[in-house]
């Protein structure tokens, strides 16, 4: 039982580390949006094409954040290695 508790604690720490990539993802997305707003302010007549390009770029930059989220979800809810971890600790 104690080994299972330790394993769950370790898995939660690992999931939170996997979610830390949100820091860099958010930073990159902020950079994309700030550059897009700058270019819209410079050329308001090109706002529509800049906006659609910005959305595609945001989606591309979001991919790594989504991968981190999925890894965290798989580790928390569908972890295939819990039994090995418990037998290793206990």
């Amino acid at each position, binding site marked *: 039982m104690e080994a299972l508790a330790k394993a769950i604690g370790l898995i939660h720490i690992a999931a939170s580390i996997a979610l830390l990539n949100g820091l860099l993802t958010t930073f990159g997305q902020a950079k994309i949006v700030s550059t897009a707003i700058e270019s819209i302010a410079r050329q308001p007549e090109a706002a529509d094409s800049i906006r*659609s390009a910005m*959305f*595609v770029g945001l989606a591309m930059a979001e991919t790594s954040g989504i*991968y981190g989220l*999925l890894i965290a*979800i798989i580790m928390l*809810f569908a972890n295939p290695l819990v039994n090995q971890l418990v037998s290793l600790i206990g």
Partner: protein
Amino acid sequence: MPLNVDNIWILDIFGIEVWITETIVNSWIIMAILIALAIFIRIKMRKFKEIPTGFQNLVEAGVEMFHNFAQNTLGEKLLYISPWFFSIFVFIFSSSLFSIFGLRAPTADFATTGAFALATFILMIVLGTRHKKGEYIKSYFEPHFIFFPLNLIGELAKPVSLSFRLFGNMLSGTIILTLYYSLTPIFVQIGIPAFFHAFFDVFFGAIQTYIFVIISQMYVKTAAD
């Protein structure tokens, strides 16, 4: 709203178990609604006039908006494929609206998004070989035939990232709403979740649908053009 996908019943077809999950039933419901809407519009179309009014105006505006959008991203040569993308657009958007009613959205299951991404992948290969013939197969061996594994991995990563993006976004909304419903007392569950639903289902659903469709169109265009 539980987190795991429920199994409603198990069919047994010649010794092979076929699982009918909640996702499949929900997507059947959406398909039934969309087919009924399509038949309704088809019957109404017999009475359509030269100068549109009322309901005809709405339908024509929707089709024309998507036609212009597809013309900008796909180009004239591939425009005949745009009805497929319109049906994907309508299905994904209505399935993300489906979780407003407290049911599980079919796009919050990897089976649905994986199937759509696989369809885009097959479309890329078929249209690439149809429009560029041998040049498409040759593009896997550019600039040199040693680069074939790298090109193959790059091509296989496209449907994977496409499906994981939609799945992750929809699943995160479902998880946050499930946490809210299970952690809060009953008197804050009236009214306040409407804002969460408006943000996670309607707003994120619309943006992710737009992004899924525009990125699949870009992939098909780069493969075929």
